């Protein structure tokens, strides 16, 4: 891990809002996963959170502490694409916001989970080009979503947490 910087949304909300207006005018969606690293700012605003940025060799982690207490980490490649998101905390993040274009296939797969036996358990979804894993219990949740083909070389799924 290299540089570390913290940004508070409170002191910069006006400037940030101006930036986001420009960005959202040019981006097809506010999607984080699969999208441009600039979309992290939209997520941060949506979550009314503060952000820390940590750089590793082949990627950068943008950690957003949401106002609700949930921590979301967005993993950006050196090419500026979000290849994974992970979260932990009392409440699920807004998956529609976080997964963007990946939300619908994820939600469809989540609804299709069934078998001959009823039962409650963690949710694992593995689609071509998308993995989503949800675990935990009430008020203690954890999860992650990533696009396997977008993982930078040398990055393993275990690194996303």
């Amino acid at each position, binding site marked *: 891990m290299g540089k570390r910087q913290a940004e508070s949304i409170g002191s910069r909300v006006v400037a940030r809002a101006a930036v986001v207006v420009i960005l959202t005018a040019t981006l097809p969606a506010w999607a984080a996963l699969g999208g441009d690293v600039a979309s992290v700012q939209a997520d941060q605003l949506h*979550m*009314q959170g503060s952000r820390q940025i940590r750089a590793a060799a082949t990627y950068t982690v943008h950690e957003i502490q*949401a*106002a*609700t*207490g*949930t921590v979301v980490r967005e993993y950006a490649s050196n090419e500026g694409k979000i290849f994974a998101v992970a979260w*932990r*905390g*009392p*409440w*699920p993040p*807004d*998956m*529609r*916001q976080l*997964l963007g274009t990946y*939300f619908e296939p*994820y*939600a469809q797969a*989540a*609804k299709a*989970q069934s*078998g*001959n*036996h*009823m*039962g*409650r*358990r*963690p*949710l*694992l979804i593995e689609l071509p080009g998308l993995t989503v*894993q*949800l*675990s*935990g*219990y*009430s*008020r*203690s*949740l*954890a999860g992650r979503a990533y696009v396997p083909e977008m993982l930078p070389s040398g990055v393993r*799924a*275990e690194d996303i*947490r």
Partner: protein
Amino acid sequence: MTPLRIVFVLLVGSACAFSLGCGGSSSPKINTIAPVGQNVAPITVNSGPTGNYANGAFTSVTLCVPGTSTCQTIDGVLVDTGSFGLRILSSALTVALPQQNAPSGNPVVECFPFVASYTWGPVKTADIEIAGEKASSLPVQVLSDTDFTVPSGCTSSGVPSADTLQTLGANGILGIGLLAQDCGGACEQTGGANPGLYYECPSTGCVVTGEALAQQVTNPVALFSTDNNGVIVELPAVTGGEASVSGSLVFGIGTESNNGLGSAAVYTPDANGFLTVTYSGTSYNQSFIDSGSNGIFFLDSASTGLPNCTMAVGFYCPASPKNFSATNQGNNGTSGPVAFSVANAETLFANPADFAFAGLAGPNPNSFDWGLPFFFGRNVIVAIDGKSTPSIPGPYWAY
């Protein structure tokens, strides 16, 4: 391998084929199960109200219109140490419970986020009876997708609703875990700090509202007049698969002659509510104990060597049962080994008469979810946050 070790392996192997106690290095599990009584409700692990539930622990709950003798006993309610508060299917409810209203006069409706589903429906008030224990004017959630239109904020998690018998698999969920309220202080907030569980619903549509602690859906045990500091879930050991297993849900910790801590070791959760489990030299700090999970869900195929099932998606399917040992560690430093065995889920499910399975397990990357099989043959104590007990105050698990 020396001849002596070969003999040892053969002996262990053959013992595992016939012994009740084949669960790794542990001796056969023998736990004492309290007889049903004033503070003890019966639990049954069976196919449940849908007739096809695997590893569901069910009990019955009596709900009354507050202050009246107009009551209804509902069976097939899932005993869930992984949530907080009582949720009942609207379709299972015949008594007319009063609606909880916001200060504005609008009805309060909740969206509760479980891991793989959400529940939606109005908050109502009931007097509750379980065994001989009573809670008065308890806020409960009545599950229904149709009484109020589900708002988009409730579907943003992407998981489906579980508000019908066929989607919930039970007539209700009895959340008797570590905490008292299902949300806590966050839901009292307004603006971005509010996670959006409670809505008020005028005819124009539902909007997120702040909800005072006392109005939130609450773990009924915390509101019992006695025996209100936690529960003990007591289920016998299970061999392979069984059609039905009977046990007890004991209320109170150290409050009666039948609910002492005994020699149980206390494991506290960390700030995120999790235990740390160490397996094969790696620690997984997003782990937990949850009677509402229907198997032991841990790690993945690569780290366990267990193949995923092809038909029974979400479970492991080893060619033959495989033994494991992991170490639980609480935030308080307590640690101890847990031995368990993983069987082939498709083999277990192949017997249409069986619904209680000791070896049912599946993947859950980076985490151990000690579900119902962890409870078989082991009395598990769950102490509620802030309540005093013969040991430290809750929250903790002990076994």
